[in-house]
């Protein structure tokens, strides 16, 4: 069980938690947070491979993680803005009711 | 320029900071328990009764229990009861004296109206301000004994005013004596002229 295996196990565990969270909860915010968790799990993999991978080129893994974090941040911001907009309109944020597309 | 107002403000506080070390006009703090400020002469706090001499305070009270101050006092905090008998006062005339004379210092607002309206200059304003007590009732109701203070104490706290009051009293006493002498002489002459005429009434 090389350390790489351990890291992969942890990140896959985190990924599955994020997935179940996103699917199970009816509150849109928590769904979004679940997706954030999945993104973090992916980043974990990058760092693990960068650290324990065969021929680690000096900065590849790290740069990829930086970009991933940036994108995740942008996505979270837009997602939450959407939630606020939807909330203002229909006064609660249950996922099921957000089915009317009309403005 | 945007920052100039703020910089000016900073300069002023800096000057004050420097000033507070050497400029007496800026450093005004008086550390109370150690240093005490000198009270001005006209300072007034709760009233007190004047006695002629310190040896027999109750005997030589100047107050004649005329109860004018009791009537005039706005918050009605003076309580006086006349005495049954009379006793000679400084000028030898027989006067009443207050059996009970109490001031409730928790009500008195030291407004000094009793001093103004008292025709006999018997009540004056004191200068003691450290009078905190633990008990709310007994200690704050000052009775006759605790109110009476000798005339010398009055000279001590209000020198100018006391001198002027004494001057006036002496003048009155002298005028009263002359009048008494004149009346006595006139009486003697009248008695000599018409022994039957009754002597003129004693003037106050």
């Amino acid at each position: 069980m090389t350390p790489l295996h351990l890291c992969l196990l942890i990140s896959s565990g985190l990924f599955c938690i994020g997935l179940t969270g996103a699917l199970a909860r009816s509150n849109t915010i928590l769904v979004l947070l679940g997706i954030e968790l999945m993104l973090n799990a992916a980043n974990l993999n990058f760092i693990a491979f960068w650290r324990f991978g065969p021929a680690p080129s000096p900065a590849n893994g790290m740069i990829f993680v930086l970009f991933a974090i940036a994108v995740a941040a942008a996505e979270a911001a837009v997602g939450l803005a959407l939630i606020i907009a939807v909330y203002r309109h229909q006064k609660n944020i249950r996922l099921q009711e957000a089915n009317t597309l009309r403005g | 320029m945007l920052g100039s107002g703020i910089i000016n403000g900073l300069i002023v506080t800096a000057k004050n900071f420097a000033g507070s070390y050497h400029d007496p006009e800026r450093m005004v703090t008086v550390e109370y328990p150690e240093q005490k400020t000198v009270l001005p002469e006209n300072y007034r706090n709760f009233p007190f009764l004047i006695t002629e001499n310190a040896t027999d305070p109750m005997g030589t009270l100047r107050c004649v229990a005329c109860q004018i101050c009791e009537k005039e006092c706005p918050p009605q905090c003076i309580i006086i009861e006349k005495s049954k008998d009379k006793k000679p006062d400084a000028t030898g005339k027989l006067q009443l004296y207050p059996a009970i004379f109490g001031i409730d210092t928790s009500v008195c607002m030291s407004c000094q109206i009793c001093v103004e309206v008292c025709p006999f200059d018997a009540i004056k304003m004191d200068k003691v301000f450290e009078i905190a007590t633990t008990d709310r009732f007994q200690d704050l109701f000052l009775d006759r004994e605790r109110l009476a203070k000798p005339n010398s104490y009055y000279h001590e706290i209000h020198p100018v005013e006391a001198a002027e009051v004494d001057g006036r009293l002496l003048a009155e006493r002298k005028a009263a004596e002359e009048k008494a002498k004149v009346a006595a002489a006139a009486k003697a002459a009248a008695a000599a002229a018409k022994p039957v005429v009754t002597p003129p009434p004693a003037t106050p």
Partner: protein
Amino acid sequence: MNPFTPSAPTPFASAPGPTVRAVHDEFHGDLLEVSMGPQHPSTHGVFRMVATLDGEQLVKLKPVFGYLHRNHEKIAENTTYLGSMPYTDRLDYLCSMSTNWAYALAVERLAGQAVPERAQYLRIIMAELTRLVNHSCLVGFLFNDLGTSFTPLLYAFREREKIIDLFESLSGSRMMCNYQRFGGCRVDPTPEWLAAAQQLVDNFPRFLDEYERMLTGNEIMLARTQGVGRLDATHAINAGITGPVLRASGVDYDLRKVDAYGFYAQFDFRVPLGAHGDTYDRYMMRILEMRESVKILQQAFKRLPAGPIMDPKAKLRGFRPKAGEAYGRLEGPKGELGFFLISDGSPNPYRYRVRPPSLINLTLLEEMCLGHTIADAVVILGSIDIVLGEVDR
């Protein structure tokens, strides 16, 4: 209890409830009813503002006062005319000398009492000194609300202390002077007192210059006060507002010029007028008025005549003015301070009414504060300069 869930909209009377409650208002969605209670640090004395906020903007503001009501006018009906003179000190405890003068003015008009010339001059000196005390206090408290940690307040109080010490050495008490009598003054100032007062008045402008240099040009001060709490002239006149608040809106109404009571006609001084009627103008009114008062004081010291300070015919006790009514008013530091007396010939007044400038200036507080934030409401209250002793009487 989730603080956001709106409780049933209780009747809007000053319900004792918790100080902060969510009130549901159909127009604005969820409002926040914040009660800046009697013990709030920035209200000058026991005064409560029930402010309803929509986010940061003020939607409704209900001043609640009466916590300091001492039934002054009813008591005055049961004591003699002289007896209620010391009570007038307790009305506006910051400027007791000018309140005494207003009451003495009313009684003298009622009884037709003459006042010797020296006493008139002394009264003008005392009134202008109290104006300096009041305005420096106000400016200090205004900046304290604006947020500096007590620095301008302590500078102002340093100057005020000097004047208060003068009052103490003259009338016996720092703030409760009880100095005026019907027909003159009670104590004749000694030459040393006059010299000390003269010296104080001469270097008072130095304090004002230091104050102006520190604060008038300050950008933050300009941003926080200009355009805040705007009051237009017609509105002020209709509401009966008087004093610096009115003059800040540009209305030329100063009793010292209008009535010219006492010997004010013989003094040349100018009345500053504002243009915008906002908090900055009110602050500047007070600073400029302080400069004018210094000018009046300097002239008064030069021309103080000798002579008696009390009209010989004035009777101290058994003072029974003939039946009738009189209204004496003067330009107090806060506005037109008036005393209305009805006498029925007995030693006690039949009716005794005080016109409190603080209370009347307070009526427009809500009108000035709407649309601003809570921070501004506190500053506007500070700029109106109210003293709760006078508001509640």
